[in-house]
């Protein structure tokens, strides 16, 4: 049997990033590792974005990097993927306008990718699909108003969130119920 087609570096990075995202979303509260030595926004951008989809980010540097994927930069209301280096007041105001999908097409809701620090001690209790009972997680730098805003959309509507730090990713699908302690 001939050798398989080459598993190139870019192929490997995309696949490993996707698997991290997939398992993060399948097991909310766990933090799968992203491929080493790379900007998580660039990794996720290269994995998910291309000219068939769109993004929004307030950060000029991230915007330039994501533009390389060929994806369209759109206004926050219509963009499919949002990237935030931090959640300041203007970012929160933007997220308030992000697409939560419709009952007919809940899959059109936005995906938010937010830089954050997380630890596995208390603060937030998660329940829902992908969680065996309940699990606790602490995510630093996320204002309480973010959680209130997230509560406003009832399943199956709402955005899906990936919190990323430099090494790993934490998925928070819309199906997860978050309780603040």
């Amino acid at each position, binding site marked *: 049997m001939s050798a398989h087609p080459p598993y190139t570096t870019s*192929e490997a990075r995309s696949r490993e990033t996707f698997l991290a*995202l997939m398992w993060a979303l*399948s097991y909310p509260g766990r933090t799968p590792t992203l491929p080493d030595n790379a900007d998580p926004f660039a990794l996720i951008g290269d994995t998910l974005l291309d000219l068939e989809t769109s993004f929004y980010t307030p950060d000029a540097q991230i915007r330039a990097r994501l533009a390389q994927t060929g994806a369209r930069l759109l206004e926050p209301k219509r963009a499919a993927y949002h990237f935030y280096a931090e959640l300041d007041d203007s970012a929160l105001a933007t997220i308030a306008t992000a697409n939560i999908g419709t009952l007919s097409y809940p899959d059109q809701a936005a995906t938010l990718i937010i830089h954050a620090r997380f630890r596995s001690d208390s603060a937030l209790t998660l329940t829902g699909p992908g969680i065996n009972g309940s699990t606790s997680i602490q995510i630093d730098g996320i204002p309480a108003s973010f959680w209130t805003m997230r509560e406003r959309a009832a399943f199956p509507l709402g955005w899906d969130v990936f919190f990323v730090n430099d090494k790993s990713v934490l998925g928070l699908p819309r199906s997860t119920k978050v309780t603040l302690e």
Partner: protein
Amino acid sequence: MNRLAALAAPRQDYSYAFLDAYAKRELRRRTLKAIAIPGYQVPYASRELPIARGWGTGGLQVTLSLVGPESIVKVIDQGADDSVNAANLRRFIARMSGAQTTTDALKATIIQSRHRIPEEILREYQALVLQVPDPEPLRAVESNSSRAHEMHAEADYGQMWLVLYEQLVRYKQYIQGASYPSLVNGRYVISPSPIPRWDTPKLHQSAHLTLLSAGREKRLYAVPPYTDVYPLEFDDIPFQVEDQRGWVCAITGVKNKFMNEIPQPDGTSTYELSDTGYMEKVAPADATRTEPPGATYYDEQGNFYHDGYLKPPIQPEL
């Protein structure tokens, strides 16, 4: 080697894992949405593959978007690892990705399946990819797919209950054998693909991730790990799995696992295990390769591993 060949890049006839980068990204975007909305049928592009639609292209595309050189892939067709369809798909996946293949459900990282879930309990971080011929559980009650889409949006499943009621009135039991409609996460009714009723409870609060993909119908949906999946049933007439009590596998002597019925010339039947990977562990063809079977969803007495999930049968009084 002559010098021109040395200068040229090595010839590549295929992308890694067959699908091109655009196809993979699209499928991966869609897969993430499917996991985020358990049971919702996410539309996707469904590319051309070197097998015909209807022969597992949906499952194959999902597998190709997941697979890598370190993956261990198992492909089953009605429980069998050695059917033509399963063997072809397995060979194609391995040839395009360099992944290892196995028949052991517990060793596999990706299990692509047509119409069965293995008998052994799958674990966390295993991906079960089910090939789906018809993803629409409402097809029988609503032939217009746009209207069926609206019914899902409105969680309008009244007609499904009517179908079940009519079955009880006519036959005194639920007669749907495979693809038994099931409610995922309390919101969407799915067709769990034509797995037997025996396998449907295995989706409930499972440790593994299940991805269901219909290539011809271009729809993808998921049952994430630890998610509620309940077959539609009335409170007073519980859902039942196939009654195969008393059926004994002619090869292994095993009971209380899903069996194939093999008609005999004299009009009787013999039975054998449907899950050939499990059979191989219980009664290895090669006696030197003994691998003890793992824990199974149904124990030797036929009890399901989630206590109380399956209820004793009740005959309707109609």
